[in-house]
């Protein structure tokens, strides 16, 4: 089985996001980037499946200048990927449709049975890359996947798609296919920073052309804004003791007091 994982970086939400001067994008000057959380789960699942029953894991990421795509791919290698490939060349993260067209083009020359990527990313305004790539390639796709098992013979997988209330749908999916991964059975494995640094110097990061760009997102962003936080909330200030006192008073006003009264 040949597994391919589509990876990307997204702005680090631990940092404050600011809107640019146009009011239609993020101010990227001081932005720092991290691997998209769900992509990390996708990679972990791919590595797990390969370790369990053999095969290869190839990581693809777009060659985006902002951020640190080499570090992202070197981290993939440090975690155990067999091969890493940078696709195309972009100043910034492109929209999902452009990304999907580039990945679909690259997958034309990268052997794959199962393509895994994060179910979503925090910045995919024009939709999730997984089902977009799948449809461009004519492959079936399942989103919000929480369990993957490869059938004997390797011609299909059984997956779970998560619904509300902890209910899941179980599906049998013919390969090749694309899965949008919601979570992995184990936490993403650790890659020592020293190993990542070493691989960034010594490892081979292949490159592939992105092919003909698609038509883009087809969306026009009129404005971006930071929703006004706390406009509805009355903010309680003071030290923890004072905050606790105020919360206790608010609860008491509603007849909820200590002692486990219902």
């Amino acid at each position, binding site marked *: 089985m040949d597994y391919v994982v589509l990876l990307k970086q997204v702005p680090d939400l631990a940092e404050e996001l600011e809107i640019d001067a146009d009011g239609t994008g993020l101010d990227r000057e001081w932005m720092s980037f991290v691997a998209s959380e769900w992509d990390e789960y996708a990679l972990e699942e791919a590595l797990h499946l390969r370790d369990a029953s053999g095969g290869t894991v190839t990581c693809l990421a777009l060659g985006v200048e902002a951020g640190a795509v080499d570090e992202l791919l070197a981290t993939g290698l440090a975690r155990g990927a067999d091969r890493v490939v940078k696709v195309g060349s972009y100043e910034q993260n492109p929209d999902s449709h452009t990304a999907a067209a580039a990945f679909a083009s690259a997958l034309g020359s990268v052997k794959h049975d199962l393509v895994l990527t994060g179910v979503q990313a925090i910045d995919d305004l*024009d939709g999730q890359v997984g089902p977009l790539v*799948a449809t461009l390639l004519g492959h*079936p796709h399942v989103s919000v996947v929480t369990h993957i098992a490869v059938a004997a013979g390797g011609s299909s997988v059984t997956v779970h798609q*998560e619904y509300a209330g*902890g*209910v899941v749908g179980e599906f*049998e999916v013919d390969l090749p296919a694309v899965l949008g991964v919601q979570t992995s059975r184990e936490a993403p494995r650790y890659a020592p920073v020293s190993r990542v640094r070493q691989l960034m110097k010594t490892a081979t990061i292949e490159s592939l052309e992105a092919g003909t760009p698609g038509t883009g997102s*087809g969306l026009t962003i009129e404005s971006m804004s930071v*929703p006004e936080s706390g406009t509805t909330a009355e903010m309680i200030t003071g030290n923890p003791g004072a905050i606790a006192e105020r919360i206790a008073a608010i609860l008491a006003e509603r007849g909820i007091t200590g002692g486990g009264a219902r």
Partner: protein
Amino acid sequence: MSGEILVVVEHRDGAILDTTHELLGRASALAAQGGGATVAVLLGSGVAGLAGSLSASRVLVVEDPGLESFSPSAYQAALVPIIKERAPDLVLVANSGPGMDVAAGLSAALGLPLAAYAVDVTLEGGSPLVTCQLYAGKIQAKVRFTGGRGIVTVVAGSFAPGTGGSPAVEQVAAGASDARIRFKGLLKPEAGDVDITRESVLVSVGRGIGEQDNLELVEALAAALGGAVSSSRPIADAGWLPRTRQVGKSGLKVKPKVYIALGISGAPEHLEGMRGAELIIAVNSDARAPIFSVAHYGAVADLLDVVPALTAKLGS
């Protein structure tokens, strides 16, 4: 906008999902404003009886054994020819697992743009203006379809459900099928020790709890309040609390009298499950956490400091 607004119906276990009624509610309002018609597309097998409950002008019922339960490939194959033929101005889909598959699949298959994570859709200047939540709810973007038409995936709870309606029901033959994804069954979780949808006080924890051992502090607070402990997704993913305690899109929808959110940033997926609580009190160390935009009371503080103080206060 004078063309059709098409709503993809989601149903499970023989019942229409709430999100579909919400989409129809907004679709009807937009159609009334813009002069178009609301068309619901109901895919399934033996589902025609559900059509009458949909508040649309017209329901297209596509029945086929291959559509008995949701399958991404079967739904996509059946929907592509319908949308191609009817060329609706707007296609509304719920931002659920099936919705993501359907909406993004249709977008790529039909070359129609997609605006994801919408919390509002209005008509302004005669064309749709969509408000989307990005960056875990920290940014809102207002977007238009460059060509005027497109697909929108809508976050649950964004619109009031549609009411009434005696739609014209039309049976449509399935134009195409794709059995590469076959539904095998629904798996339901075992009932939990506590039914958080029935509790009047929920003390809910998120990533801000830091370590599993700190849950004891929260359990003590919940006990003092006569409530139960619930959580956001990361806590259930880590196995620190059972999945049956999870609030949100993939967990349960709760409407307690009091919801105390501790160390929960308030990603849209979480807010979806708890914004209906009567009183929401949030404690989070990040002043910009989106949870403060739905909370009634908020405090920017470390929950590990506030919780023991509050428990002590309640015990005194």
